[in-house]
């Protein structure tokens, strides 16, 4: 049977799981919860595989129209799903990685009080994410779009008793909302100009439009606004600030949402809207520039971070930058390719980091780690693979995708390529730095037992999983297999995942989606002429060597001469400080937007306008009326003769008036 019939099932299944766990989880046993969560997420994964099996580019794209959702006048939006090569890729990634992380979470969260909540949230996230990727129109996509935001809000703030976690969740949601604002406006523009939000309808009309070479036309506006949305969701400049904080969430969440799937939604959306971007070169340029800058910017921050998850977070931001760079230069397929590989190795990295944290009893500061290689070999191995992959060491997954992007970028404009390469250098540097600091050298961490009490709940969660030694947490130790399994699986994927891209097979697979776009042209010409092959290999060599260079640097600084970094940092002084403090961007935003907003609203609007002006006006007019009344009533002096005076005067006035009337 073709996917048309059961397409809608794929998102619904996890929702069912979420519902069941959400409603009955509180009272049902952990095993039941686990069963429900895993079964439903696996079902989704299974359906996805089924779909992939039955998928034929000939019949693609598939539709599935569930029901009317909104209709007003001529404008109508349905619950309708859509499957083409692009969404298939996303589908597999989301369900696959998602399912693995579900398994991992079972081990990681087993002893948390909110286990059922966590599982329900995860399922809920799966539902929204799948809605997002399977949507047939922008509004349903927006459901997923906002929905994943909600899920991440809930999951980041999962340990809500921790203020930092709560505010991190809020921050994530609000920053995303700012992005969504742009997205919404884009949708309004589409409604205004195309009268529909359906991909097919919109794109078919767009292709009829001329390319907006000069100035900001409608399409450019739409593109830019979509990019705002994407920037919010995929943590690009200037809206990336929420992602690092999002690390407050449990590590599986960071892996699933803030590495593998949700944050890539922006990329997916831009790729999905390739038709529009294609007609708006200026928007494309903006996307490319933002992506490039973010890549470099985030990477530099990554250098100086000591929190293992923070490092990964910034590396995620930077990698996303790569993807946008790709989309910006029209290499959408390359972007998606990198998205996929990134999902593998970054997911892996996070899970491994989680396993490390779990192993050392909730410690996240790399300075307190080190020498874990002998304690947790599997974790080390898998994480190593992931590091090689992200660093772009051939033939691992990262290499292929990153190289593809750099090559496309070079064809577009060599500046992108240069920055990209630089970023690659930094990336491999801080990744290996992370490896050395974590696994190399001696174990620097104190025995976690005594400082458990002022460890965040993350520690509790993991600590409780070893209730047998109540006195605390002895040696660092390897994680249980329920957690290691997913690591291994992802490691394999990171190893071989890139091979699908060899010879542009992946690109050709996706080609129908980006048919007729500049990206396609680019693909053809770059694939076509043999002459440029030499340059291609040259560049490949450069990037690879750069990655090795980064590795070398890290090796020197953090394995051979561990005292050097401090000195370098000292010599750099202010710059280093700035980097450590993430260039004070958060502080800047606080000073620039948050504080003025709060203070302004309080003093000017509330106390000023509302109470000071409007209410005051009302009350004053009331008291004024009283004063007037008090004045007027003194007419009633109580003196008879003055009363008579009034009467007489009034009479006189009346007579005078009447006489005048008579004379006229």
């Amino acid at each position: 049977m073709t996917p048309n019939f059961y397409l809608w099932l794929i998102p619904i299944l996890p929702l069912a799981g979420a519902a069941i766990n959400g409603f009955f989880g509180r009272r049902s046993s952990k095993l039941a919860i686990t069963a429900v969560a895993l079964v439903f997420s696996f079902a989704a994964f299974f359906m996805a595989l089924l779909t992939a099996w039955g998928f034929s580019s000939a019949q693609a794209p598939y539709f599935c129209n569930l029901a009317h959702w909104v209709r007003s006048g001529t404008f109508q939006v349905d619950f309708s799903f859509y499957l083409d090569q692009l969404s298939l890729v996303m589908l597999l990634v989301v369900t696959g990685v998602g399912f693995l992380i579900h398994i991992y979470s079972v081990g990681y969260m087993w002893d948390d009080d909110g286990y059922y909540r966590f599982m329900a949230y995860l399922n809920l996230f799966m539902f929204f994410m799948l809605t997002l990727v399977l949507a047939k129109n922008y509004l349903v996509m927006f459901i997923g779009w906002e929905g994943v935001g909600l899920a991440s809000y809930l999951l980041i703030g999962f340990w809500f008793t921790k203020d930092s976690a709560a505010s991190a969740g809020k921050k994530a949601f609000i920053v995303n909302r700012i992005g969504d604002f742009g997205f919404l406006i884009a949708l309004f523009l589409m409604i205004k100009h195309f009268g529909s939000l359906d991909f097919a309808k919109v794109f078919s009309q767009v292709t009829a439009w001329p390319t907006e070479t000069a100035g900001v036309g409608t399409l450019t506006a739409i593109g830019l606004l979509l990019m705002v949305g994407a920037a919010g969701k995929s943590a690009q400049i200037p809206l990336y600030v929420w992602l690092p904080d999002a690390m407050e969430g449990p590590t599986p969440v960071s892996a699933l949402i803030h590495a593998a799937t949700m944050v890539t939604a922006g990329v997916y959306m831009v790729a999905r809207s390739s038709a529009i971007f294609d007609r708006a070169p200026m928007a494309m340029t903006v996307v490319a520039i933002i992506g490039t800058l973010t890549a470099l910017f985030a990477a530099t921050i990554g250098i100086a971070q000591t929190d293992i998850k923070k490092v990964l977070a910034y590396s995620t931001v930077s990698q996303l930058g790569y993807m946008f760079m790709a989309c910006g230069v029209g290499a959408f397929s390359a972007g998606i390719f990198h998205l996929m590989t990134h999902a593998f190795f970054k997911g892996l990295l996070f899970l491994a980091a989680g396993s490390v944290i779990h192993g050392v009893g909730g410690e996240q500061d790399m300075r307190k780690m080190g020498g874990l290689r002998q304690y947790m070999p599997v974790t080390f191995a898998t994480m190593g693979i992931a590091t090689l992959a992200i660093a772009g060491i051939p033939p691992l997954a990262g290499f292929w995708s990153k190289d593809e992007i750099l090559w496309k970028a070079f064809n577009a404009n060599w500046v992108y390529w240069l920055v990209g390469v630089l970023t690659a250098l930094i990336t491999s540097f801080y990744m290996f730095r992370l490896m050395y600091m974590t696994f190399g050298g001696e174990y620097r961490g104190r025995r976690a037992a005594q400082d458990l009490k002022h460890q965040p709940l993350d520690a509790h969660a993991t600590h409780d999983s070893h209730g047998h030694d109540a006195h605390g947490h002895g040696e660092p130790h390897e994680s249980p297999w329920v957690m290691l399994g997913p690591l291994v699986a992802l490691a394999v994927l990171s190893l071989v995942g890139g091979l699908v891209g060899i010879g542009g097979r992946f690109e050709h697979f996706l080609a129908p989606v980006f048919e007729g776009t500049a990206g396609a042209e680019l693909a053809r010409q770059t694939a076509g002429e043999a002459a440029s092959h030499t340059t291609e290999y040259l560049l490949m060599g450069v990037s690879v060597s750069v990655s090795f260079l980064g590795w070398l640097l890290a090796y020197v600084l953090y394995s051979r001469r561990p005292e050097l970094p401090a000195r370098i940092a000292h010599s750099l002084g202010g710059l280093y400080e700035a980097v450590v403090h993430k260039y004070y961007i958060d502080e800047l935003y606080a000073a620039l937007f948050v504080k003025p907003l709060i203070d302004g609203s309080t003093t000017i609007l509330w106390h000023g306008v509302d109470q000071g002006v409007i209410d005051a006006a009302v009350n004053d007019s009331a008291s004024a009326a009283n004063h007037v009344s008090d004045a007027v009533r003194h007419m009633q002096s109580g003196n008879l003769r003055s009363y008579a005076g009034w009467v007489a005067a009034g009479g006189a006035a009346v007579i005078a008036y009447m006489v005048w009337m008579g004379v006229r």
Partner: protein
Amino acid sequence: MFHLILFLFFGAICVAGAVNLLVQSHPINSALSLIAVMGSLAVEYLLLGAEFLTAVQVIVYAGAIMVLFVITIMLLNAGKEEGSGGSRVAILLGIPGVLIATLLVAWTVLFHSNTRAVPLGALKGDPRAIAQLLFHDFLLPFEITSVLILIAIMGAVVLTSRPEAVARGPRRDG
């Protein structure tokens, strides 16, 4: 000529009396001057031929009513009125207004009341003719005045009699 002289003479008395009523500070003097006014008014009526009214004016008004006044003054032995602070409204608004109104009315009466000049005893108001009207045309008002008188009597009785209700019941003045 005779008519005019009489009119002017008694008119002058009226005016004098009226003014005197205002300027006198002791009520009794005012009362007396008022009597003078009424008396001379009676003569004015006579000049216009209203004999019956003249009689009634002298008997009822000057006679009965003013006596009532005088008695009251005596009863309450009202002395000279002390010059307590007057009322600004009355002086500043009332008097000027009144004067203006007076001028206007006077002007109207003089030039726009298209009244004619009349001889001495213009309209004979002898008792019979009056009675004719009173008991036929104005029968109803005449009868109704009895109610008025009745009320007046009741009022006088009620208001002047000492409130025995209070004498009986415990006195509770607010």
